[in-house]
C-alpha cells in the first residue's frame, strides 16, 4: 500500500489505515502514564492505534518514553537497566531510596482492554518490581508476556553483528521469548545450573559426582530445549523473510554451535544424552578454564546478507542497520501469523539511518503490519511521509505534547 498523506486526505480518511491492516485487531497502547520515571516526574499520553512519532532534541526524553513502554513486557527493558536506575534522578538522592518509578498503561487487545501497571515496589525496602493487571497484583513479570510482546531496535544495537557473541545470543533469545514465553525461564534455569556446576568444579574439595550428574542432566535437558527453541525461531524467521518485501536486504539466520548442530542429525533425546556425556568428560577442562566447554551458551547467531552472500559483520553500517530492521519486521510479521497477535514496535533513531527509499518502504511495511509502532527521532521532517497515517508527539524537557494533525509536514 502507499503512504497516506495528510495533505491529500481529510481526517475521515484515517479509517483507511485500519482497513489496510491484517485481519484481527492489533494490540496497542491507548494510554501511557509515567511517574518518577527517568527524566519524567509525571506525564500522560493518550494515543490511538496509529504509529506514534516522537520528535524532540537530544536528551528530551524520547528514549526514556520508549524504555517505559519496554517495561510493559517482562525483562529489564531496552536499556537492561537495574530497577533502581529507573527512578527519577535527583541530586543527592541515593537510587532506590526516593519516590519509586511507575509506568501504567491501558492496552487494547482484540478481546477488549487491560490496565497494566508496573514499577518499583515503594513499600518494600528491598528493590523489587511489582506488576498489576486490571487492578490485581500479578504473580510476576511473566504474566505480562501473556498480554503483549514488545520488540525494539535502538542505536545501541547498531554494533550487534560486530559485537561479542553473547550480545547476539541475547538478541536471539529475546526474539525466541516472543514466540515461546517459556524460553525465558528455560534460559535462566540453564544459566543457574551452569553457574552452580562451575562453582562446584572450582571448589577446593572434590565435588560430589552425583550432584554434578544431576546438574549436568538438567543442563542437558534445558540446553537442548533452548537450542531447539532457537532453531524453530530461526526457521520461521527465514521462512518469513523468504517472501518478505524486496527493499530490505533479506537476512539468512542460522545458529552455530555444537549442540545446535547435533539437532540436525539426531533426535532431541539423543542430543540430550550426548550433551550430558560431553559435560561429564569436560569436567577437568571446565575446572581449569571456568564455564563449560559444551552447551547452548556457546552458540552464536549467524546472519548472512542473503542477496550478496555476505556475512552481516562484513556488510556496511547502513546495510547492517537495514538487516536488523528486516529481522525485526520479519519477527513482527511472524508473531502475528503464528500467535495471532501483533507486537508493539519501538524503533529508536531508525528512520534517520535509512535512505529515503528504504525509509518510505519501512513506513509502508509498518502500516501494512498494523502493529503499533513508536518511532523516535530528532527531526520531524524525517517522518513527513507518514503524514496523517501517524500521530506526532513532541517531546521537550520531559513534557509530551501531541502535535496538531496536519502540522507535521
Amino acid at each position, binding site marked *: 500500500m502507499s503512504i497516506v498523506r495528510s495533505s491529500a486526505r481529510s481526517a475521515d480518511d484515517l479509517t483507511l489505515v485500519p482497513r489496510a491492516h491484517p485481519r484481527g485487531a492489533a494490540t496497542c497502547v491507548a494510554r501511557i502514564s509515567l511517574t518518577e520515571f527517568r527524566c519524567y516526574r509525571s506525564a500522560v499520553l493518550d494515543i490511538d492505534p496509529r504509529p506514534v512519532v516522537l520528535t524532540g532534541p537530544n536528551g528530551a526524553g524520547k528514549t526514556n518514553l520508549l524504555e517505559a513502554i519496554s517495561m510493559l513486557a517482562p525483562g529489564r527493558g531496552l536499556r537492561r537497566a537495574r530497577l533502581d536506575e529507573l527512578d527519577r534522578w535527583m541530586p543527592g538522592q541515593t537510587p532506590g531510596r526516593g519516590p519509586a518509578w511507575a509506568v501504567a498503561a491501558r492496552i487494547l487487545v482484540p478481546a477488549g482492554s487491560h490496565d497494566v501497571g508496573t514499577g518499583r515496589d515503594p513499600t518494600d*525496602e*528491598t528493590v523489587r518490581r511489582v506488576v498489576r*493487571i486490571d487492578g*490485581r497484583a*500479578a*504473580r*510476576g513479570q*511473566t*504474566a505480562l*508476556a*501473556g498480554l503483549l510482546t514488545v520488540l525494539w531496535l535502538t542505536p545501541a544495537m547498531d554494533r550487534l553483528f560486530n559485537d561479542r557473541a553473547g550480545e547476539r545470543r541475547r538478541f536471539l533469545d529475546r526474539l525466541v521469548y516472543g514466540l515461546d*514465553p*517459556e524460553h525465558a*525461564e528455560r534460559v*535462566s*534455569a540453564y544459566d*543457574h*545450573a551452569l*553457574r*552452580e*556446576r562451575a*562453582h*562446584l568444579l572450582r*571448589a577446593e574439595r572434590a*565435588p*560430589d559426582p*552425583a*550432584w554434578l*550428574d*544431576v*546438574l549436568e*542432566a*538438567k543442563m542437558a535437558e534445558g540446553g537442548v530445549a533452548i537450542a531447539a527453541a532457537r532453531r524453530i525461531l530461526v526457521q520461521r524467521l527465514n521462512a518469513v523473510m523468504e517472501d518478505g518485501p524486496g527493499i530490505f536486504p533479506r537476512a539468512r539466520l542460522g545458529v552455530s554451535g555444537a549442540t545446535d548442530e547435533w539437532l540436525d542429525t539426531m533426535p532431541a533425546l539423543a542430543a540430550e544424552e550426548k550433551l550430558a556425556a560431553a559435560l561429564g568428560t569436560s569436567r577437568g577442562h571446565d575446572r581449569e578454564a571456568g564455564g563449560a566447554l559444551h552447551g547452548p551458551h556457546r552458540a552464536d547467531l549467524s546472519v548472512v546478507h542473503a542477496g550478496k552472500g555476505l556475512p552481516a559483520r562484513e556488510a556496511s553500517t547502513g546495510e547492517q542497520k537495514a538487516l536488523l530492521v528486516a529481522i525485526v519486521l520479519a519477527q513482527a510479521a511472524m508473531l502475528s501469523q503464528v500467535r495471532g497477535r501483533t507486537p508493539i514496535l519501538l524503533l529508536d533513531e531508525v528512520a534517520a539511518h535509512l535512505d529515503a527509499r528504504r525509509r518510505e518502504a519501512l513506513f509502508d511495511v509498518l502500516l501494512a503490519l498494523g502493529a503499533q509502532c513508536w518511532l523516535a527521532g530528532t527531526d520531524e521532517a524525517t517522518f513527513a511521509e507518514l503524514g496523517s497515517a501517524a500521530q506526532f508527539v513532541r517531546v521537550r524537557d520531559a513534557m509530551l505534547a501531541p502535535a496538531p494533525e496536519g502540522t507535521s509536514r
Partner: protein
Amino acid sequence: MTPTHLERLIQLLAKLPGLGPRSARRAALHLLRKRESLMQPLAAALTEAADKVRGCSVCGNLDTVDPCGLCQDSRRDGTILCVVEEVADLWALERTGAFKGRYHVLGGVLSALDGVGPDQLAIDPLVARAGTDGVKEVILAMGATVDGQTTAHYIADRLGQLGLSVTRLAHGVPVGGELDYLDDGTLAAALRARRPL
C-alpha cells in the same frame, strides 16, 4: 530504657524476615506502648522458646520434645515419608490436614553458590531412614525452584537403589485459579500432568 537500649531493640527487630529499619522502629514503638499486654509476654515467650524448642533428632521438625510430637504420634503412617526443605513447609503441609504420613526436614536445598552441599543437609539421615523403618514411599515435596528441583533429583538418585516408590508433588493449576491469569510455564506443566476425569 536509654536510647542505646532502644536502638539495639530496633536493630534486632530489623533483622527479622520481612522487617526493615522503618518497620522495626514502628514495631518497637508499638511494643513499648503495649508493654504489659504484649512486650513482656513476648519476651517471656521468646526466652522460653529459646530454652525449650529443639530440632527433632528423627525428622528435623521443631518441638519441645524429642522425638517431636509428629514422630511420636502412633496414628501416623510410617510407610510414607514426605521430604520438605524447611520446617515452614512441614507446617504448610500440616495445615492442609491432607497428609497423615511422616516428615523429613532437609534444612535447605542444594546450592553450590550459597555453599550448601549434601553434607549440610539432612540427606544421609534421610537415606538411612528410608532404608529402614518399613518405608514404602518417599514424597519429594521440594519447591518448584531450580535449586529445589536439583535437590529432588539428587535425592531421587540417592534413593534409587532402595527400591522404594519415589514421587513428587504435582505442578499445575492452583485451586480456584483462572487459566487466563496463569503464566505459560505453569500452564504447560499442568497440561503435561493432566489426568483422566
